[in-house]
């Protein structure tokens, strides 16, 4: 017993010192190596008188455990210290810039088109498209605007031939014609796209964007038109309340026709939609003219409905406070970066149009 105790005391005091990893390892060998002091004692267990053997073995095991755990503790301590010393040397200036990244952006018109599609999707509209180059029939005649109609003067048209038979579409309404000729009623579509007029100044660009809407079914009336646009405007501008005014107007392809104004005010130099007592014209609409329906072989006695046309660029300007229409198409890096949207910001119904 006294041997055991001696060993214990001796090594406990040794291990108290500041030791290197090598020194600890040699202590470990001294104790538990092939001929180590503890190992040797274990070999003697058989020769201990039976009466003492049990106690001896128990004491020896206890001391073995005690010393072993102390040694591994010590080793761990030293290793941790060494690693820490190494890491200390590796320290970098973490305020240095990371690897550069470039951010792409989505054009505000594209973002607005996605917002519009998302809103109309919720109430059952699907998206149709048509070509930018149109024949004069689809752009005018089929839309109840024959050649001798003064309303043709209201569209400054780009022509591609001297006979004025092919042109750049002046509105998205020819998509109505194409859709109705192609399919059978009911129709419930929107058609966003590029449109063209030979007009260019601060508020007019020779190319701009429109979204056409068309809903034809058996009992669609002006109340549905009002409801649809009211819903759209509220959703689009993300406001609870909207002030809206339907004014009688005239378009050859709708009757009755209306222009729609929304109420706004200027607060701190920014336009606020839905309040105030100023009116801003934002779209034209009406009930599809029976002549148009006849032109596309839809029976106006059975089917009726509404159509509307909204300026997309105009909507984007209002919503995002953009002043100059021309800048949309000027491709200035600074402008695109400022007004563009992150590609991950996809407008959706469940997540909302914007963050």
């Amino acid at each position, binding site marked *: 017993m006294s041997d055991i105790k001696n060993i214990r005391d001796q090594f406990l005091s040794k291990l108290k010192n500041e030791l290197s990893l090598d020194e600890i390892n040699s202590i470990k060998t001294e104790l538990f190596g092939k001929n180590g002091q503890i190992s040797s004692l274990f070999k003697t267990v058989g020769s201990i008188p039976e009466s003492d053997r049990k106690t001896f073995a128990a004491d020896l095991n206890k001391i073995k455990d005690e010393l072993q755990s102390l040694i591994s503790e010590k080793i761990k301590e030293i290793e941790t210290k060494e690693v820490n010393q190494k890491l200390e040397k590796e320290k970098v200036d973490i305020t240095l810039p990371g690897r550069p990244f470039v951010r792409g952006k989505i*054009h505000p018109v594209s973002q607005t088109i996605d917002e519009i599609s998302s809103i109309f999707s919720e109430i*059952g509209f699907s998206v149709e498209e048509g070509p930018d180059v149109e024949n004069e029939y689809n752009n005018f005649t089929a839309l109840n605007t024959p050649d001798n109609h003064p309303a043709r003067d209201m569209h400054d048209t780009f022509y591609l*031939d001297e006979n004025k038979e092919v042109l750049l579409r002046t509105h998205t309404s020819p998509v109505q014609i194409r859709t109705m000729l192609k399919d059978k009623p009911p129709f419930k579509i929107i058609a966003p796209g590029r449109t063209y007029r030979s007009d260019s100044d601060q508020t007019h660009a020779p190319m701009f964007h429109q979204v056409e809407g068309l809903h034809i079914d058996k009992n669609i009336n002006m109340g549905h038109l009002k409801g649809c646009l009211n819903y759209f405007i509220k959703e689009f501008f993300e406001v609870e309340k909207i002030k809206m005014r339907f*004014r*009688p107007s005239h378009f050859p392809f709708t009757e009755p026709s209306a222009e729609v104004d929304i109420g706004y005010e200027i607060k701190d130099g920014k336009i606020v939609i839905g309040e105030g007592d100023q009116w801003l014209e934002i779209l034209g609409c009406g009930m599809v003219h029976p002549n148009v329906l006849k032109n596309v072989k839809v029976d106006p006695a059975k089917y009726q409905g509404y159509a509307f046309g909204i300026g997309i660029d105009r909507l984007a300007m209002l919503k995002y406070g953009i002043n100059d229409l021309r800048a949309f198409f000027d491709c200035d890096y600074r402008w*695109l970066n400022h007004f563009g949207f992150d590609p991950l910001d996809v407008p959706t119904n469940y997540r909302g149009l914007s963050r």
Partner: protein
Amino acid sequence: MKITFDWLKDHLSVSAKEEKLLEKLTDIGLEVESVENLSEGLDLFKVAKILKTEKHPNADRLKVCDVDVGEKEIKKVVCGAPNAREGLITVYAPPGAVIPKNKTKLVIAKIRDVTSYGMLCSESELNLSEESDGITELSSSKYNNSIGKSFFTQSSSNLIDLSITPNRPDCLGVRGIARDLAAAGFGKLKQIKEQKIKSKKSQTVKVKITDEKNQGCFSFGSCLVTNVKNTESPKWLKDKLISIGQKPISAIVDITNYVMIDINRPLHAYDADKIQKGIIVRNSKSGEEFTALDNKNYKLKDDMCVISDDKGVLGLGGIIGGTRSGTEIDTQNVLIESAYFDPRSIRKTAKELNIDTDAKFRFERGIDQLSIEEGLNKAAFLIKEICGGEISKINIQKISTFKNQIIKFDPSSFEKVTGFKILTKDMLKILDNLGFKCKKDKKIFKLTIPSWRPDITQEIDVVEELVRIVGYDKIKIEEPIKERKKSTLTQIQKLFHFLQRSIASKGYLEAITWSFTDAKYNDHFKGQNDELKIVNPISSELGVLRNSIFSNLIMYMSKNIDRGFKDLSIFEIGPTFFGKQPGEQNIVVCGLSAGKKSRLSWLEKERNVDVFDIKKDVVQTLVEAGYDAEKFFIDDETPDYYHPGKSGRLFLNRGKESVAAYFGEIHPNIIKQIDMKTVSLVGFEIFLDNLKLPKKSLKDQKTKYSVSDYQKSERDFAFIVDKKIKVQDLINVVSNVDKNLISNIKVFDVYEGDNIPENQKSIAISVTIQSQEKTLKEADLDQINKSIIETVENKTGAKIRS
């Protein structure tokens, strides 16, 4: 259409305020464009008398006048008018006044060293007439006691400018507007008793309408007023015209203008003595000419409706008169014309000759065919009243007789279209107020359409009239139902949006540029396409439809580089055109990337963007969109605007159906020619219409999940091959050795030069070998190693590098 509330009150009994009027006009579809106070500031203009004139010390033609403006102080005014003389009573404008004609604001100014306090005004400067030769001369008997008083009588009525839609010719007359307002409950339409001509004198100028094909004149009414004395219009008439911004000219012209604006009845006045042997209304012959009242000479084509006499063309019916037969101040006998011209004929002629006049604007929209006599009556009596003379009988020639249109109207169609009800009795009242005559036949109305409403031809037009007058605010909102029966986007539309955002996510800014472009730029990129010219472009720089998006994109890229941005990526997704017919267009995603990667980075070496950067963007985008990169096939046949050695063409499959994309460096010659200052420019085009849509939806694309947990081994090979051998082919050969076992091939080195024979190169690849079924033994691996080497050597002529 410009009106004033005062003029409206000639036709409307009403006590409401102007504010209410403006609201009502807009509510019934007569949109108020602007409201202007014309008389604002006009009170500053004073009646003044010149007391003395002296020659200007430094200018021969100028005078310095002492002017009595009714104040204590005599004003010194410098004036250049020859008629400025002592004792003349004229109009004085003080500093601060705004000259009506040119809207300039007067200031105290030194004119050749003499200070002038204000200005003496000509009639032209005051918008009173065209007279600009001298300052206004006011009669001393009338104005002697008015020195210092305001020259203009103050009018409280603002000038209201209405935007009248093309379907409403009746509202191009004040009375038509009044009628609409009255129908909508704003005041009561005054019944004006028409004074009818009861003359025994016959109209002695013979009038004939030739009955020929395409005759544009249906009827021609005329009245002769003899022995008139044309003069200045009386004040009430002048004021009326001035109040809507028009300039009085002479009584006869002013009267025709007044009648036109008041009841939308265009008239024309001829000097009857200048007409040779009567009037013939006929179609023109090609080559005929005449000088119109706008002092331009017009050469006519066949079949234009002309008013002519024995000597030739007098004027274009319903569009513009000629100088030869125009009335002048000494005209003694006036022939008034009140006719009806076919809108189509008017529009065609005016368009061909490019003439726009007030009369044309009205006839083109449709004039009341029954207003011929009313116009003549009104004008003839006014001429007689103001200019004296004797009125003849009215003469009306016609080739067809007007009949009011009758349409059937089912009152239930109102609710069907508008979604709300109004009482039958209210419908009848509105229609009656608008001038419709209504007979009820059981439940159906038989409506006689008023002659001034050529726009009303069917039931829906009547619905519009009713709902317009009742008010759009009465339409009830029907909340939309949130239900979707058809998917919002088609597969191709989804792909469009996916590609758009996928490219943007790789650091490209999305641009939207015109669909047309500068032919100069387009030329570089049009490839095999024809140039597609726009007949009437907005400018020559936007003269052709773009054959490629590059033309615009490169121009704007260049502009941005000039702004100082060196490293930049932009893209556009949109149409390009290959023909002038509808549908001859493609959707292309086109991007450009310029400059360097890692410019001025403390971390990495900088390098120019290169073809493999852009290749990565294209391939990654297509893979993200659902295409299998392992099936891609790339070769180097690209359009000539790419660098011939550093550009590629990508197919989705080896089968080479249609080109999915081009990518590469832009040809250095083009960069040089457009003078773009960049170290590197690479670009790509992805052709949306050529991408075969992935057949499966996302849910079908997710097949059974199976991965191998058996050990994988990597083996490296270096082959020496002919320079012409493409890495793509080598990889293809290797992967075909055993598709089940070879799961990945990576190229880690390509080397030419020392130790490699000329015309050959070394390609080093790392091949990953893994089985789905078992752990491969060394022998299996050796076997496949051997196979790879043998196959590559056999198929490509390569040699394994030892």
